[in-house]
């Protein structure tokens, strides 16, 4: 694995939150997640299904509107969460009108001083929203958005069955306003060759291909825009073992030749270990541990990471026989009643979500 150039984060995710639903039924799919991705590295995001890793990836390219938090791409803000601001404005406005957010009257009305304060806050928030809108537009105008591309999990569902391979791959270019057909053809053929297909495949339809070839088409579609970052959302979990190796090898090659940075979302830990430089472990919307992949597998600290690592099946019947799977129960494993946990750095580059007490425990464990 090539050593990533440190101190040059190409993507910076800050306190990203993505909530679904309203009121009591709010589901915190992503709750205050922060991490950096450095140029040229592969950042693996793991966790069980439903823990919010796909939502994180999708929010980062604004497939969802973030609730709050920011994402910076090359120090330029591309995602700014505004939903929380909008909610706050609504509440403040209701307060000024002498009502609670649910419409019932407030017991004591606000004093004049408080009203002016609230109005000032509203103006402030509106300014923030305006800034966010401007940033979003700006990012789109300067093509920053097209420099981040996504590869989807299901190669069957993510390709339009009525379009030929050429149309599918060239769609991005056409949307960007490229009209020169010859250039597009050349570019499509080049991409097909890069991913290990041949020119004749361009006129065929997706159903004529095998699973591995379809995933290659998906990859060709994402790299034609010459992106700097690729978000690969479980690109191999729908594929046969022998084809998995082909796709991973292809991604590895592309990463070296094109200098790609990859956010690799997966649940197969041995593949993530093999492919990633750094790994973030997510559990129920929170990032619980983050470290370089060797470090994470050598010194897992968070109990959830440990349980995850203990569940990996190995191709070795002897050691499998006496494998003990560690179970993780957040109720018994943590004492969060007195202190909310925070994301702390145990040793340089190794972060764990923990309380101060746990922090000391982990440090002691590490130094032992």
């Amino acid at each position, binding site marked *: 694995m090539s050593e990533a150039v440190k101190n040059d984060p190409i993507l910076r995710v800050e306190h990203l939150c993505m909530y679904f639903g309203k009121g009591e039924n709010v589901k915190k799919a992503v709750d205050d997640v922060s991490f950096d991705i450095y140029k040229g590295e592969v950042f693996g995001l793991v966790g069980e299904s439903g823990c919010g890793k796909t939502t994180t990836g999708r929010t980062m390219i604004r497939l969802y509107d973030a609730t709050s938090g920011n994402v910076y791409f090359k120090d330029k803000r591309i995602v700014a969460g505004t939903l929380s601001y909008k909610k706050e404005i609504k509440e403040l406005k209701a307060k000024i009108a002498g009502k609670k957010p649910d419409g019932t009257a407030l017991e004591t009305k606000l004093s004049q001083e408080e009203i002016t304060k609230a109005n000032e806050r509203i103006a402030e928030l509106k300014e923030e929203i305006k800034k966010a809108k401007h940033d979003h537009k700006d990012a789109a105008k300067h093509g920053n958005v097209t420099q981040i591309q996504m590869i989807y999990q299901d190669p069957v569902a993510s390709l339009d069955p009525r379009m030929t391979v050429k149309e599918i791959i060239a769609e991005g270019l056409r949307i960007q306003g490229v009209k020169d057909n010859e250039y597009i053809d050349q570019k499509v053929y080049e991409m097909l060759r890069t991913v290990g297909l041949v020119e004749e495949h361009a006129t065929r339809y997706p159903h004529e291909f095998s699973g591995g070839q379809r995933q290659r088409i998906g990859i060709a579609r994402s790299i034609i825009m010459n992106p700097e970052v690729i978000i690969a959302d479980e690109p191999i979990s729908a594929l046969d073992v022998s084809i998995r190796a082909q796709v991973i090898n292809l991604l590895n090659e592309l990463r070296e030749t094109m200098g790609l940075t990859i956010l690799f979302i997966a649940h197969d830990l041995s593949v993530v270990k093999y492919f990633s430089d750094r790994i973030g472990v997510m559990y129920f919307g929170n990032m619980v541990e983050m470290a370089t992949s060797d470090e994470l597998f050598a010194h897992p600290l968070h109990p959830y990471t440990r349980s995850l690592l203990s569940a990996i099946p190995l191709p070795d019947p002897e050691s499998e026989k006496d494998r003990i799977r560690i179970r993780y129960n957040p109720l018994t494993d943590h004492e969060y*009643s007195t202190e909310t946990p925070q994301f702390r750095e145990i040793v340089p580059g190794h972060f764990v979500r923990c309380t101060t007490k746990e922090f000391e425990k982990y440090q002691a464990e590490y130094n032992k």
Partner: protein
Amino acid sequence: MAEKKLEVKDLTISFRTINGKVQAVRDISFDLYKGETLAIVGESGSGKSVTSRAIMGILAGNAIKDGGKILYDGKDLMKISEEEFQQVRGDKIAMIFQDPLSSLNPIMRIGQQLTEAMLLKNKALRKESKANLKAMFAALDSRMKEVGITDAQHDLAKFKEFGLEHSKLETSYTEALDNATEALALAENCILRIDSKALDATLHSDLLQFEQASKRSKDYFVVRDRAAELDEAVAAVKAAGTPKDEAGYAPVKEALTKAVSVLKEATEFEMPNTFTLAYYLKNVKNEIPQMPVAEMNALTHKETEQGFMDAFQAKAEKAVVYSSGETDKARQAAIELLKSKLPVLEKAEPVKTEVDAAVKEMKAAVAKCLDPLEVTKDSLTHTFGTSIDYAVDLYFGGFKRNEKEEKRFAKSSAKHEKIIARGKTPDWEVIPMSLVNLEAARVDMADTVKEQIAHFEQQLAANENADFAARTLEIVDYLKEQTENSAYYLSKHVARERAIKLMEGVGIDNPRRRFYQYPFEFSGGMRQRIVIAIALTANPDILICDEPTTALDVTIQAQILELINNLKKQRNLSVIFITHDLGVVANMADRIAVMYAGKIVETGTAKEVFYEPAHPYTWALLASVPDLDTKEKLESIPGTPPNMIYPPKGDAFADRNANALEIDFEMQPPMFQITDTHYAATWLLDPRAPKIEMPKVITERLERIKARNAAKAQKAEEE
């Protein structure tokens, strides 16, 4: 060696398609023993799913059963009718499918779908056990009479009487124990919740469930002397109701702690031997003796042995020895008859009337060779009749004219010639007029008989130094099991509890609420777990898992594999586990069969296949999966599996194998034996073959594993 549950012999299956006949499974054979897991590994399209579907009898409509046998419980699953198959499918052989959506009924609640099978199965099991018991009793009775034991009827009635009592006692005990375990888990969880200040609706429902479960946990053996204490604790919890704040929960916690101490003792209680106890109650004294369980077990055991069992066993053994001798005599006679009639079938042109007469005699002779006192059914002898009939029908049916086929043949061969006349080479072949190979069918007739003769000879040899005491014990165990089953009544309430426990077992949160939901309310992974739970409710003999965990993530995968493994141990299940991921089966499988292009290319115990893989395809499969220490480039398998309309002449994997030998393209390799259990079909094992090393990735990994295991062993030794 354990008992053979399922035998697959020379199974060949193909599919009729527009482009021609696709040969999906080509001549595979394997055995499945009781309580073992056989993993079938291969890429998609290697025929592993087709094999499992043939065992389940759910092949697609265009499938052609070219030949072979699937022997299970005295039946040949390839030849029985759909009505007979319905007795087996789901009940005896259950399957977990790849796609969970298609196996759930969209308009039935999950709970109903889960309990349905349990309740139906329970009813069927009672009926079946009663019939089995009756048959076995009758057989024992008649055989005992023949050896001069006249009071057999009396003994058997006695056995049945206390057998039923045993079933009652055991049901009551296990139910109470189940409930006590549940109550204990709930109480502990509630205490945790109170401690961590999670005073929400879940806590309230847990408390409610705890109350119910503790009420049902009282049995003579489970919550024995401290029932009053438990009642008190439950009453206290009930009295507290649902307080708003933490202070209100103080008495609840106190009561729960008390309950936990009672329940803990109860669940750690030694299990009484209900079988001997039942005898004691029915025949010695109708009162449970007041003493510790261990002592009681010893006492009742002694009473049962002296009072009944020893004498009964001696009598039964006499009957078994006699029965076995009689059957052996019948076998001798049958062998002679089969041998004398064999030339009729082996004629160059067999005559139908002669063959029919010979077959009739043979069938009668073979039918006499079934020992009525045999617990494990002799599948081959049972199916001899259907097998020979099938072979004869196939041969003589081959002479019939099929005008439609003749027309099609004439048309397509004319077309074929036309293309050749034009100077082109057609890319298709003419399908022959008759799909029956007459010569092969004729040989098959004689082979069926020869196989039976060899089987009898083998049995005769085995019977010369048979352990009749063990066989008698087997019969006693069988009787015990059947009486137990014939009286076991599963109530809807218990079925519900079991289903909920199973749902918890497969990792579904809040199963009590989920129990009443519809399939569409579940996510994909959840649905898969439900399907697994449903397959397990029927308590099958053989469980076929067709890539059950492919769509699930690691933690759940590990949970489900553990679940299947535990069930296998508890119920002595036989499992066929189909997957494309070799890594998954290392912990599950006892034996592994690697399939490629419709053939088994390598088979052996898990250790042999993982540590000493012999076939290049197994190497390729192992090399394409990264493990935690892999750093090098992965070796993917180039190309795609061959088109099975035109199966390759030589080794099917030769095209994708960089190190293929010349002979690989010309001749199919036979199965080379490496050890007693390890076989592989590759020319590399031929003594004339050049030495080709395994890929570096695997040798290095094996070295790492060896070093790690050696270090572990050394560490264990030091300790």
